[in-house]
């Protein structure tokens, strides 16, 4: 009985479930960087780097799937390290803009290079990702990040986020930790991108641009960054809601988009710590 229901559910909502999983993973990639107080808007671009690298490796060079994914994530991490060195010295809103600019450069590169297929995108990537892959990776990431939070590194991130100067006075090497948060975020984004590339046969540059970068931020804000489950909640609600509303006749196209904006506004005005703050018990580390 349940099996029949589930397979029916998946037939209809399968791709939505996949998208939610990928978006949750991407949201978590930004969560890591935010947990150290770094407002990076480059994670969509890092996802793109992971996606294209993995896609090209699998498609053109017949590299096995797990290796492509690892390579994609690895390249994202390396580029993040190189970019991070100069960029992480910049504070606050300027960092956001620098990472945004970086993201645009990456997107334009993807549009203009032959190897990435140009504006049409990379077509014909073999489908290797299953729902289990996505949620398996997601579960592993959640576990890792939850443990990270209570570890020395996690506490360092939290201290830097609150007050960088005080953190330095406590013996925390802030430059190292900020770079670590940035690179870790890029790595996770790279994995998400690589997995995504093998989901639907095609990836296009536009999917990894400014809108996507802002979306990730919105998932974190709406969900809340006090707990590792916050970004997941945000991704879930903001990905699922427009799709669920598709069936509702009153909710025409533009209105569905507008609803995300309304939710965001309501959250930032009335529930600044995100929707996850409804579930207070899960929050505190100590």
């Amino acid at each position: 009985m349940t099996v029949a229901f589930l397979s029916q559910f998946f037939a209809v909502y399968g791709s939505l479930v996949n998208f939610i999983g990928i978006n949750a993973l991407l949201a978590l990639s930004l969560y890591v960087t935010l947990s150290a107080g770094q407002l990076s808007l480059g994670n969509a671009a890092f996802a793109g780097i992971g996606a294209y690298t993995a896609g090209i490796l699998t498609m053109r060079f017949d590299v096995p799937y797990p290796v492509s994914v690892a390579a994609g994530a690895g390249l994202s991490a390396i580029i993040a390290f190189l970019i991070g060195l100069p960029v992480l010295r910049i504070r606050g809103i300027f960092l956001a803009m620098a990472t945004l600019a970086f993201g645009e450069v990456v997107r334009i590169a993807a549009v203009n290079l032959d190897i990435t297929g140009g504006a049409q995108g990379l077509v014909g990537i073999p489908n290797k990702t299953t729902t289990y892959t996505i949620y398996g990776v997601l579960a592993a990431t959640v576990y890792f990040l939850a443990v990270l939070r209570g570890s020395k590194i996690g506490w360092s991130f939290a201290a830097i986020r609150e007050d960088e100067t005080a953190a330095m006075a406590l013996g925390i090497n802030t430059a190292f930790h900020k770079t670590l948060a940035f690179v870790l975020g890029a790595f996770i984004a790279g994995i998400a991108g690589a997995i995504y590339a093998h989901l639907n046969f095609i990836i296009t540059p536009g999917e990894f641009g400014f809108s996507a970068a802002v979306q990730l931020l919105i998932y974190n804000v709406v969900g809340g960054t006090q707990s590792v489950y916050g970004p997941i909640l945000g991704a879930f609600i903001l990905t699922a809601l427009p799709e669920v509303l598709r069936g509702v006749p009153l909710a025409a196209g533009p209105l569905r988009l507008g609803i995300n904006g309304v939710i965001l506004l309501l959250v930032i005005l009335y529930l600044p710590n995100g929707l996850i703050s409804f579930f207070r018990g899960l929050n505190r580390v100590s």
Partner: protein
Amino acid sequence: MFLEFEKISRSFGGVRALWEVSFVVEAATIHGIIGPNGSGKTTLINVVSGLTGADSGRLLLEGREVHRLPPYRIAALGIARTFQNIRLFSNMTCLENVIAGQHLTAGRALIPRLLRLPSASVEERRCREDALSCLSSVGIENRAGALAKSLSYGERRRLEIARAMALKPRLLLLDEPIAGMRQREIEEMESLFRSLAEAGVTILLIEHNMPFMMRLCSRITVLHFGQTVTTGSPEDVCAHPEVIEAYLGVESC
């Protein structure tokens, strides 16, 4: 000789904050720094803690040059500090603030935690207990679960001291630690500092409260316009003609 300042100078865009400051701090003593506002006291602490570099001169900790080290290295040498305008982690609880301060003393390694080894939870418990004892040594253990931003002014100063103590420092730099505290709190802090010194911690203390400094400090350095006026016992400093002149009409010994 525990800490030696050797002609430390520092300017900010043409303004001389410190000029050839030289004095010595003995181990396990409470050494005071006094001087009018703008005399360079906080800049001096910033140089010691590595937040600001020195343009010239040397700073020696037990004979080792430390003035070129970044703040996190200084802390690793066992030097902790508080800030004049209080830099707490406002959105964390008191307990969490102190636990964050255990960065150098607690292992909290990632792998044991990922593998859920029993050693990890043992260490976690120990961290909490240590943090609680830091809080109780400054008298705010009853506020352990309260957010730092909800504390009273005096409580916040005490929390910052507790967090600095979590480092288990050899040298404690205190920048106006009792400013804004009530008399009873001041007395408690006085006995805390004394017991820390007795336990072997060296304390470098900036304050404006003269009676407090006279009672507590074994030696005092006076700064004026970024220069050392004199260094000596409280009585000697009080009798010094230049000190009297600098403080004339403000607060006398």
